[in-house]
């Protein structure tokens, strides 16, 4: 689907920050923050899949969890289906939970080994509906059918299933309350390649059938190209680039997005032999002490002097394409002055002290 088909944002994230305090010393005094997510803004439109990619430690999973308020965000707002999740009272939040669900990375760790499959899938129904047993059982069977699990296995335990089947159990549980929005946090990372495709196809089928909206968090750029409509690339707690899928893979704009895509090996010996790789030097800096200015300035092959001073803001540089990089913002080295009138700035606050 091309960008522009969905214009109704289901999820609106503005200036989301998630800082984890660091305590040290005998008195366990707070000595700093790990700025896991540091001012992230984006929309997810209804029926769309937004891919969220980045390397480990970039904050992509934290975004997913903060979005569903599995963490208490430090700052920012998360509006899902008209309500700001970040400030809802516990009671109101609980009523809201059925609309937003999560599929976790490790199906082994996210399923209770002492519960049967039927109990696992039915637990959200126990919690959120007042249905009688017959109705709940019928719903559990219906869900098992939807995700391709044999009904006969309803009374088995998670350890009796393979990794791919366990992930199906996790998906069925997430679907139980008819959510609108599902955060898929690396749902295929723990699976073998031949099983990954089964789960991804299932997620796509369910999206078509039930009109779901996904945030698909992954480090697998090839799989994100397959499943996502738009893709956000994160680096060190911020979004470097947010673009429609085809545009991003054809011509990444942010230098980090370029390096990331060029690093992915491809199953084609001919192309591999001739491909020019951008090899980044060094490692990702610590999010407890991120560099001043652009967080990518320590590894960027195109770094300029003012990148080390001024933080670039995420701005729309081409229709639908948002990039946080001084190469694209019409800058006069004075990054605080607002750029051209067409450049719509996404408010990405995150001034570092």
């Amino acid at each position, binding site marked *: 689907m091309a960008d522009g088909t969905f214009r109704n944002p289901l999820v609106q994230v503005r200036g989301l920050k998630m800082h984890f305090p660091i305590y040290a010393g005998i008195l366990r005094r707070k000595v700093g923050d790990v700025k896991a997510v540091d001012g992230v803004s984006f929309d997810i439109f209804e029926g769309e899949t937004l891919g969220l990619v980045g*390397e*480990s430690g970039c904050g992509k999973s934290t975004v997913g969890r903060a979005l569903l308020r599995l963490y208490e965000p430090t700052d920012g707002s998360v509006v899902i289906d008209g309500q700001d999740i970040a400030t809802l009272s516990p009671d109101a939040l609980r009523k809201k939970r059925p609309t937003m669900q999560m599929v976790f990375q490790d199906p082994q760790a996210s399923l209770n080994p002492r519960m049967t499959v039927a109990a696992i899938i039915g637990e959200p129904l126990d919690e959120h509906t007042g249905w009688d047993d017959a109705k709940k059982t019928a719903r559990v069977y219906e869900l098992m059918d939807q995700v391709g699990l044999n009904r006969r296995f309803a009374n088995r335990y998670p350890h009796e299933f*393979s990794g*791919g089947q366990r992930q199906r159990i996790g998906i069925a549980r997430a679907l139980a309350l008819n959510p609108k929005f599902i955060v898929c946090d690396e749902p295929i990372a723990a699976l*073998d*390649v*031949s*099983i*990954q*495709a*089964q789960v*991804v*196809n299932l997620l*796509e089928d369910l999206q078509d059938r039930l009109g779901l909206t996904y945030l698909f968090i992954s*480090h697998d*750029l*090839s*799989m994100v*190209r*397959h499943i996502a409509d738009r893709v956000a690339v994160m680096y060190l707690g911020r979004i470097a680039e947010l673009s429609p899928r*085809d545009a991003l*893979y054809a011509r990444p704009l942010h230098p980090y997005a370029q*390096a*990331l*895509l*060029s*690093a*992915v*090996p*491809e*199953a*084609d*010996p*001919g*192309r*591999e*032999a001739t491909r020019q*790789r951008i*090899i*980044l*030097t060094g*490692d*990702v800096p610590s999010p407890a002490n991120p560099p001043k200015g652009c967080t990518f300035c320590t590894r960027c092959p195109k770094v300029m002097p003012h990148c080390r001073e001024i933080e670039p803001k995420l701005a729309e540089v081409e229709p639908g394409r948002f990039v946080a990089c001084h190469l694209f913002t019409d800058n006069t080295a004075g990054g605080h002055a607002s750029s051209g009138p067409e450049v719509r700035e996404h408010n990405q606050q995150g001034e570092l002290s």
Partner: protein
Amino acid sequence: MPDGASPVLEVRGLKTVFRTRGGEIHAVNSVSFHLRPGELLGVVGESGSGKSVTMMSLIGLLPSPPAEVRSGEVMLGGRDLLKLAPRELQEVRGAKVGFVFQDPMTSLNPVFTVGNQIMEPLMKHMGLTKAQAETRAAELLTLVGIPDARKRLKSYPHQFSGGMRQRVMIAIALACDPDVLIADEPTTALDVTIQAQIIELVKDLRQKLGMAIVWITHDLGVIAGIADRVMVMYGGQVVEQAPVKELFANPQHPYTRALLKTVPSLTGERAARLEVIQGQPPILQAEPSACPFRARCPHAFARCEQENPLRRAIDGLPVGKGHDVACHWSAPAAGAQDG
């Protein structure tokens, strides 16, 4: 590649069995392959395909019990490694064969400095003095691209990042100038940009040092970029083996074909739907009497149930030298698309 050269490593009919309470697991079944000097052999397979167990069996790294190497020959430098006494085998490990494991955190000892761990094989196998070993260790760290090597020798593993730790592992594996380097999923635990760094490093080291490498991975992309030859494993057996370009251009085994199609591509046409390999990999509870892939194979027929296919050459060259496949189903001509 040096085609006529005699292999540095030759494995014939290797069989490894795990004895568990629930019965025997036949993890490796009659695996044969060879490695020529300076060659990089890619071994591809999913978890449970027997790729790691094969390599661990070669140099006696599997705990026994439960593991038992039941038959086979592993020829390295004119000796059969499977017949060596434990002490002789220890000489081979580290000195002749270097090993790089998947997870650099768990394979480095957290309570010793990195310098200590690089120097250990140097003093043990090469009889260097402590001072000599330290100089050599610093050289090795520089070789694998760690700046400020002398100082870094005094650091502990936790003071290194994941990519740096893997560089240290490579330095240890290379310490005694081995003939063969076995790298078991060396980049799987790393991020893509760091993986790219390690792959570049290995390419560079091959140029400089010229050792033969076995690179185990499940990622066909990594293999495409670095391997000379590829061996595809499934259900504890080698199902296909070919030079890298040939394998990607003209895959024969239904499993290889499916594997190539099930992974989405980064460029080129975007498939509306991913190809799926139905079902699950087999659990190898008995010596296979049928093709291990039959239950998931779109082309399976009666014979696949009755008889485990042997590897046969498809290009006239002897099995192992050119392109061979273990499959009863006769594949259509190159380029033809199967259903």
